[in-house]
């Protein structure tokens, strides 16, 4: 049946290639791996507009953080604020060792993972920013830390991994 359900007409038929459309679309340049995006908007304008702003949420509980990040993202969509990216930072693991010394030394381990989600926003007008901040602040779940700051190069670079071999080679060249 799978062989018989092909709708493409054979090459000798006049209707060959009837459904083709990809050649009509505009050409997409192949994506380059190095994304050196540096967008800095006007900070002092007629209406005060903030540039890129990062809203960072950290918590131990993964589900809470993810749901909160989704909520913030949808809120911004709803309020027609442009969201550039929403990404996650690598998780940090902490090992907690309890040393109970009552006769026998027990070591109860607890492994805590800290998760971080970032939502990046542009185009906030300063009349609207405090309202948004207040809404996010009051709808914070328990155990989630909120941090709102402007996007800097350092923030951008913290996502990238350093390549020690490249650096060695560059040092050798110089």
């Amino acid at each position, binding site marked *: 049946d799978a062989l018989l359900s092909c709708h493409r007409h054979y090459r000798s038929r006049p209707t060959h290639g009837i459904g083709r459309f990809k050649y009509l679309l505009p050409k997409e340049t192949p994506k380059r791996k190095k994304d050196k995006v540096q967008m800095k908007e006007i900070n002092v304008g007629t209406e005060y507009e903030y540039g890129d702003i990062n809203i960072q949420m950290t918590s131990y509980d993964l*589900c809470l953080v993810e749901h909160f990040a989704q909520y913030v993202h949808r809120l911004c969509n709803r309020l027609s604020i442009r969201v550039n990216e929403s990404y996650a930072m690598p998780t940090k693991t902490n090992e907690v060792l309890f040393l109970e010394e009552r006769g026998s030394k027990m070591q109860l381990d607890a492994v805590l993972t800290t998760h971080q989600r970032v939502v990046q926003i542009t185009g906030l007008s*300063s*009349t609207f*920013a*405090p*309202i948004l*901040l*207040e*809404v996010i*602040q*009051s*709808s914070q779940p328990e155990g989630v830390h909120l941090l709102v700051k402007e996007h800097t190069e350092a923030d951008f670079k913290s996502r990238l991994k350093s390549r020690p071999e490249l650096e060695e080679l560059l040092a050798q060249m110089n």
Partner: protein
Amino acid sequence: IELEKSCYSDHEIRKLEEEEQLRRRKESMYDDDEVRGKTVIMAQDLEDKWEQKLLRFEAASRITDADKSNDRKSLNRKLDSNLMLLVKQKIGNQELWLLPQVEWQPGETLRSTAERAMAAFLGDHIQAKTLGNAPYGIYKYKFPRAIRTEDNVGAKVFFFKAFLQSSDLSQAELKEDHLWVTKDELRDYLKLEYLKKVNRFLLDL
């Protein structure tokens, strides 16, 4: 409670494997080689230990003493919703319940006037954060005819919002009456017109 389609964690996999081993041991009496040192602490035991710890932990109750006594002067009430500060102020010849208000001096930004009002009523160093320079609401009113002069027909009151960071108001002793109220209770204290404008910008989540 599995709402997301997430995979099993290490602990859960370990638990499942050990359950299978136990089952196999019960059915047929082999598996004495595999016991060795792995199953000294079984995953199930760990879970039981954790559950016991959880039972021993008591979360603080959400309804505090202040709620039961309905003491509107303390900040411990209604931990769920936002509380607003209301002060009794004398305007003209009337004593009214208002949000703290101070006259604007020319040459000062509106935000610094608001911060001055806060400092006047709550003490000098309050850890309250005003977000942004834009006011949240405005209330216009005309003076009664007795006080009206040619220039001063009425007044405009701009409202700003600030978040208290710490609930440590021990140093601040307000001279007049002050209350911490939620949005619904505001209705008992404020006048209608004033209340209508104020209600527009107060969020209660």
